[in-house]
């Protein structure tokens, strides 16, 4: 079979495989938010402890909320999944986790998720 014919057949087979059937696409790494309470202690745990519990963050930033005395470092973890039917997105689910540090110490978290519970 010529390369062009082979390529077209591959495209078609891939198309039929995904077709208008549902495929789940994933982006990022899913972390377990329950570890924020079970494995870490506010004011005691360190960045190394957070790294051991959750793995490497996807991003980093700084936050200074009105109730805080000063700015804190933020590590962010993000995971998303989409259910795609053909080329149409039927559903999206996400998990965002932000971990706060006061210096090297774990100082709190914010997480929100639309993922189904495991």
């Amino acid at each position, binding site marked *: *079979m010529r390369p062009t*014919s082979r390529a077209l*057949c591959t495209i*078609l087979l891939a198309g039929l495989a995904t077709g208008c059937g549902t495929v789940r696409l994933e982006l990022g790494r899913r972390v377990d938010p329950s570890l924020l309470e079970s494995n870490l202690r506010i004011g005691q745990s360190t960045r190394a402890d957070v790294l051991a519990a959750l793995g490497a963050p996807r991003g980093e930033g700084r936050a200074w909320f009105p109730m805080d005395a000063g700015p804190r470092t933020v590590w962010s973890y993000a995971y998303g999944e989409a259910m795609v*039917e*053909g080329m149409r*997105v039927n559903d999206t689910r996400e998990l965002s986790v932000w971990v706060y540090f006061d210096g090297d110490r774990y100082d709190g*978290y*914010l997480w929100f998720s*639309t993922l189904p519970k495991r």
Partner: protein
Amino acid sequence: MASSGTRRMSGVRRRALDRRAALLLAVLVIWLPGCVGSARIGTPPRVDRLSMLTRGVSTRQDVLLALGQPRGDGALRSSTLGDARRIWFYQYVVAEGGRQDSMRLLIFFLDDRYDGHLWFSSILDVERTL
């Protein structure tokens, strides 16, 4: 002879395959656009109804009545906050013509009472969306 016959056969077979490939391409061209469309996930959070809620007074039931069922949950905890806040998470995503916009609303609870909110959106005309 045999070699020439094989070449002739393979030439005929190749043309048949190319015709088949052309047909498959035509099917793809017709079939693919049918699968492309816009997507709306969830419903826009009713941020215009947040004024119905009173901090420290409104219950989960009040939030449910004002905003409807959340799509997810979460939690907030900080050394400066004291007790952890439970979160109800409302999410709306709209994808159209290669562009994706979203709106997210977090409702904080302390001891099952409404304790504040945070919302952010890439949909600039929020009032028109609601």
